[in-house]
């Protein structure tokens, strides 16, 4: 195969082969994470800018660790510390970054399309660290990796994603990635958070979690933005939790040793009960570790070698 992508913006423009190559490359990265000395010379002299317009300590830290373990230098451009708050446009910020000759920009932004915009503007590689409600491809890849690690081949596995689907970039990217890998995906949520237009994905939409659980190999809860209650999207946290909250008891309905995922940060007792989050079925901490491995793989693939033939 050939490795062509300059950027990672979403999973819809990656081939299944490319996704598999990323997951494959994350395996040796995962091994490196378990070493006492987690430092490689691979990307010595390469620079990575972390451009975060939304505060997200976990994602930023994950990217930062990944880049540093591979030996790259990282620079943080975060909201509180730079001209972002002085109203400089993303375009000018991009041009500034360009002028610093960086190799890779990881961008997190509250506007859908911000990563695509940067990729269009910059010569450097761009990784989408989450843009608006559009995409969060590294989260989806780390989820795929975690599923593969725990239950093997994704093909034919039943995956239920439950929560605030319409506002979730995690749900979108995961739905696309899981579909490409051959999983049988069902999206579940109340009609206000899972409106009919989500049918564009061509997968099953359901409002009834209990009906969808039987047979599920993986159940993924999404973070519920509690302020959405004030906008009238759901009547109360109590009712949401009753209808769509995951718990040890509820997950028994799958009839399987189902694995439970959550992209974090969790609202314990809302979308997921503590008993389940801390149970053996939960892979939530694994997701975090695997996040670093996946991001190492991506950084290596985008700026580690050429964009030509993949050679063994």
């Amino acid at each position, binding site marked *: 195969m050939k490795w062509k992508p300059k950027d990672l913006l979403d999973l819809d423009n990656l081939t299944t082969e490319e996704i598999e190559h990323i997951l494959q490359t994350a395996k040796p990265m995962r091994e490196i994470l378990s070493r006492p000395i987690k430092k490689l010379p691979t990307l010595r002299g390469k620079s990575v800018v972390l451009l975060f317009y939304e505060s997200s300590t976990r994602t930023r830290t994950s990217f930062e660790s990944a880049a540093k373990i591979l030996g790259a230098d990282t620079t943080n451009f975060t909201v509180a510390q730079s001209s972002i708050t002085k109203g400089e446009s993303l375009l000018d910020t991009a041009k500034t970054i360009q002028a610093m000759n960086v190799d890779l920009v990881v961008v997190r932004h509250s*506007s*859908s399309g911000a990563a695509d915009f940067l990729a269009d503007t910059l010569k450097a590689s761009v990784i989408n660290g989450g843009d608006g409600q559009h995409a969060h491809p590294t989260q989806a890849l780390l989820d795929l990796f975690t599923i593969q690690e725990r239950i093997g081949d994704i093909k034919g596995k039943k995956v239920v994603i439950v929560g605030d689907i*319409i506002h979730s970039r995690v749900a979108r990217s995961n739905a696309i990635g899981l579909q490409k890998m051959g999983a049988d995906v069902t999206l579940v949520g109340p009609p206000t958070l899972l409106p009919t237009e989500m049918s564009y994905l061509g997968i099953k939409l359901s409002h009834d979690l209990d009906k969808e659980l039987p047979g599920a190999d993986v159940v993924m809860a999404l973070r519920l933005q509690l302020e959405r209650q004030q906008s009238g999207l759901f009547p109360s946290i109590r009712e949401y939790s009753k209808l769509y909250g995951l718990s040890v008891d509820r997950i028994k309905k799958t009839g399987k040793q189902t694995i439970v995922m959550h992209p974090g940060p969790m609202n314990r007792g809302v979308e997921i009960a503590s008993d389940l989050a801390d149970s053996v079925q939960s892979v939530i901490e694994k997701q975090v570790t695997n996040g670093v491995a996946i991001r190492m793989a991506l950084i290596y693939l985008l700026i580690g070698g050429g964009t030509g033939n993949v050679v063994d």
Partner: protein
Amino acid sequence: MLWIKNVTVIDPGQGVSGVNDVLVQKDKIVEVGPSFKAKEVLVKLGVTDINEVNQIDGDGKYLFPGLIDVHVHLREPGQEDKEDIASGSRAAIRGGFTSIMAMANTFPIVDQRAVVEFIKLQARRAGMARVYPISAVTKGFKGQELVEMMDIKDGGAVGFSDDGKGIQNAEIMRLALEYVKLTGCPIISHCEDEALASKGVMRRGRTSARLGLPGIPASSESVMVARDILLAAETGGKLHIAHVSTKESVEMIRWAKGKGIDLSAEVNPHHLIFTDEDITLTDTSYKVNPPLPSREDQEALLEGIIDGTIDMLATDHAPHTWEEKARPFQEAPFGINGLETSLAAVWQKLVQSGKLTPEKLVECWSLNPAQRFGIEGGTLKPGSLADMVLFDPLYKEEISTEAMESKSGNTPFLKKELQGFPVITWVEGRMLMKNRKII
């Protein structure tokens, strides 16, 4: 003195549609008729030497009454970096528009007679397309107090609109429709329920869901169209619905016309040419309000034009600077630059494909606007102002900011070739554009 020969005259105002000669003396049309002889022309124009008459061969070309665009944003006063009255009215001439109606969302807002008169003065200084100011309905676009409609009308405004913003308070809209009767002008309604539109940036649907862009539901427009129709019916005020973009709106307007309610409606060319499916995250020139419709809506809009439910085409020319549009899709301003591309785009996409006749185009873009807003033009009847467009259906041009007269280049047609352009534009008998260049 002007003699245009063998040109296909399209003038639904007098039921003319075919190859004719057209005679113009000073600023007026003298006659439209089948191939005149030189001797006849001398007599009709009252001259002795044929060399005094400028003769133009119109073979293979069309002659339209000058197009009238009832919906443009000229940005002056206040945002002259995007456009000003001079550049906008030059762009109009280059696009085949001899009269344009300028919306009130400038800085300051057009809510006093002084601003209306300023706009008219600037337009006169520019000496290009005639510019008719539209005044705000409410002071400062706040949706609370009505403007001094009579004084402003006396200053030269031909309609009232808070375009750019919908009037949210139904009672204010009702009062406006009542009071506007004093002026005889229409209220032009920008139909948008702000709570429904919320932070949306494109039509809500499968594409917005896919792109993860906040959606504006079709109902955001349609509920306001329904409200305004009922208020117009109740008050008897004259209503014009701006930029109709949903099938429900079309259906309700059709119903209202059946009931004899005094209303008219316009559609923007971009709503007839693009759909929400054309939107990509990186091309903000497709970001427009009301947002690009679904395919179903688009079909209903065209049907509305054909059956007369929709009266007019209007560009909603909304220039924005490159910097403003060079932002992520969610952050860029709404608006498409339309004056210099719309006629070609409509010709190529709708007339050439047989969806729209040239007669319908002229009716919607010249005759109906003149009649509805009571302004001059709209026809080539003898005695009318010689506002005319010579249109070459074969002329091809690649759209470029260098060639454009507008200060802004926010059009999805940039760097694309279109076919069918005006090659001469006359206002009141004066040739202002020839071979795609302002004279």
